[in-house]
């Protein structure tokens, strides 16, 4: 049966003139791919634009932050009352603003402890008054005013009364103690019951004020209790206020230990890019396919029992107990009639009689079983099993 048919010769050169046709057809054939690529590119541009675009100031306690934890409200109020608020972005700006102002007040909120001792000390020396909000241990140590940390305000005292003789707290009245810190040393105000430490501590003869809560200055809570009064009286005595929130760039790296980058030899910088180049070459090597794919025309194949399965699901969805019973009964009778050789024209009663005769059972009992109409699914299951058993009994005789 195997015979070598005439062979066909094709030269590679004949393909050259088809190249231009192929190139124009490329876009049409890869329409879906091109559309997907365009959508992905558009999405990428959108995301990058959203990421790189200018964002609102979200730094807590910032004078530009209009959110609940910002301090824009208090800065604007102070500004309206003749206090020049200088927002210092970094240490240099803060120092310059302090030196330019007349008896300036410094507000310092160093949440992460970016400032080191010498810088803190020179800031404190340049400022007339220093208000420190929720300072850390290192900050207090560096300022060296005899004020120490004394834990957090207990939950039992959400509102703290002034309880001291200083004029500002007395004028302001009660403030919220929620998520505030306590400080000990100097003159303390807003003490919780049974504690000598307070939310506000004043040391250095009034030149250093420590406030253990940001809520007092925040936009969100400025209008509750005596917050506004305390904030304005604390920050407002001098005509110049330098508002300084140290950031990562204020970290003095001069004396810190050398980073991994400094320790590694020079060639490490070139290893990564070169390995990327190797990876690209490997991709080009493995990614280049040996010619186009070949199509496999797949024939249609359907599972034959699918129709019966579908009908079974229809029966079940509509709870067709009667229909199922009729089918099972008819099938059982046809098979019984075959076993009992009652002939093709036999009626149901004749088949039942023959089965009863063979098994030696009362005809009535068999007739009741075969003609039963199960009302529920549970009964249908039990009945169909009984029918199955009957068939097996007849078959085994």
């Amino acid at each position, binding site marked *: 049966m195997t015979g070598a048919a005439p062979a*066909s010769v094709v030269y590679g050169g004949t393909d050259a003139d088809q190249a231009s046709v192929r190139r124009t057809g490329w876009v049409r054939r890869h329409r879906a791919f091109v559309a997907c690529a365009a959508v992905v590119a558009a999405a990428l541009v959108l995301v990058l634009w959203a990421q790189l675009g200018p964002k609102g100031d979200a730094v807590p306690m910032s004078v530009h932050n209009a959110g609940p934890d910002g301090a824009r409200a208090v800065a604007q109020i102070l500004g309206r009352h003749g206090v020049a608020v200088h927002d210092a972005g970094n240490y240099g700006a803060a120092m310059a603003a302090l030196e330019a102002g007349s008896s300036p007040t410094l507000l310092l909120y160093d949440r992460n402890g970016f400032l080191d001792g010498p810088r803190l000390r020179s800031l404190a020396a340049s400022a007339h008054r220093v208000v420190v909000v929720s300072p850390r241990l290192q900050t207090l140590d560096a300022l060296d005013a005899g004020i120490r940390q004394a834990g957090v305000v207990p939950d039992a005292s959400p509102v703290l009364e002034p309880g001291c003789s200083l004029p500002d707290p007395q004028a302001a009245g009660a403030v919220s103690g929620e998520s505030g810190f306590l400080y000990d040393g100097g003159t303390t105000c807003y003490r919780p019951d049974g504690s000598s430490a307070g939310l506000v501590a004043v040391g250095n003869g009034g030149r250093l004020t420590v406030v253990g809560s940001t809520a007092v200055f925040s936009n969100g809570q400025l209008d509750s209790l005596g917050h506004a009064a305390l904030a304005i009286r604390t920050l407002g005595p001098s005509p110049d206020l330098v508002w300084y929130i140290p950031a990562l760039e204020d970290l003095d790296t001069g004396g810190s230990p050398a980073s991994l980058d400094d320790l590694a030899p020079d060639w490490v910088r070139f290893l990564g890019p*070169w390995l990327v180049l190797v990876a690209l070459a490997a991709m080009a090597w493995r990614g280049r396919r040996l010619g186009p794919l070949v199509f496999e025309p797949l024939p249609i194949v359907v599972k034959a029992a699918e129709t019966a399965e579908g009908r079974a699901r229809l*029966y079940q969805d509509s709870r067709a107990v009667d229909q199922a019973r009729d089918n099972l009964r008819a099938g059982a009778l046809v098979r019984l009639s075959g076993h009992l050789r009652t002939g093709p024209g036999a009626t149901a009663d004749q088949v039942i009689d023959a089965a009863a005769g063979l098994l030696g059972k009362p005809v009535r009992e068999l007739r009741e079983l075969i003609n039963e109409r199960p009302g529920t699914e549970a009964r249908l299951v039990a009945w169909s099993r009984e029918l199955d058993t009957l068939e097996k009994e007849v078959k085994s005789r």
Partner: protein
Amino acid sequence: MAISGRFVLLVLLGVVPVLLLPDWGTVLLVSGVLAALAAVDLLAAAPLRTVSLLRTQPGNVTLHAAVNAVLTVRNDGGRRLRGVLRDAWQPSAGAQNAVQDIEVPAGESRRVTVRLRPVRRGDLRAPHATLRSFGPLLLAARQKTIHSPGSLRVLPPFHSRRHLPSKLRKLRELDGKAAVQIRGAGTEFDSLRDYVRGDDVRSIDWRATARRSAVVVRTWRPERDRRVVMVLDTSRTSAARIDDETRLDTGMEAALLLGVLAERGGDRVDFLAFDRRTRARAGSAGQGNLLGQLVQAMAPLEAELIEMDWPAVPAQVRAVSAHRSLVVLLTSLDGGAPEEGLIPVAAQLARQHVVVVAAVRDPQLGTMLGVRGDATGVYRAAAAERALLQRAAISAELRQHGVSVVDAEPHQLPPRLADMYIRLKAAGTL
């Protein structure tokens, strides 16, 4: 254009000078040298414009057997071609070594043998072959895909061949030729031969015995030169898969066994694949042996998603055979369509011919019938019962019209159909 693994390795080695003299200048220099090496190698590679392919068509093969496809690569250029060839057969052709290294000196040609082990019946194709020609350094290569159509016809496997010896034996028994001690069961007088012990005494020809000194018996043989017309249904119902095989494939197996058996039995065999038009036709009248013609005709058949045109079938049968014939309809008995199509046509054919309807029964239905554990199982059993009752009703109606029905599970259908043929032949009804 393609690069080799060797080039990637070279790029990796390029890390050494870069690390020894860590500087952007070194990086640029090393990259430049690598790129230049690749470019030179690419330019030095044998051009593929002057390479031609000559394909020797592998011809025919039965399913699951192996065959070699030969491709001759001719290099008419001036440089030695070193590279890789991929013979792009479609996946079901089962190419074992589709990608091979080749080396063709200038002006010579080399033969590449690809071993195919097809896993699907039908005409399998290889639209093109791809050549990759490396330069002398084996760093970079030119690549070209050359249109070079090849095709391989995969024939039906004829698994039912294993039933052939036993069925042929039965046929010979009918003929009276086999060494069993019974009379030939046919109706046509064949010849006289000497009595051997154990022969039926009723077949002794006394007149001939009287003329000779020895006892002589008559032998009989079944009628010969009858016509068998097999009609294979290739419509939508034949696409159904039963037991890892479509109805179409099972029908082919049955038709092959019956065709070969009937030919040995001395009958004329015609085969017709039909849905709304004739898809294939073969028969004893053609050139060459019957089995070869049948498998050639069946190989490219696929189930078509259209309804069978039953009213056109009698005319097709008449076109094949004008005389009384055995007409075998290889189709399905599932509910719905047969009442309108199959039954009236079979009844009409039965008035002139002997008609046998052969259909595959799904063993899955029997399994569904037995599982009655819960409500789902019972509903499935009821649905299976309904399908089987419908088949039984259609079979009964066909039998009423004098049509014989062979309704069997896939592996049983070919031998059962053969048995039916032998029974009809023995009865002398053909």
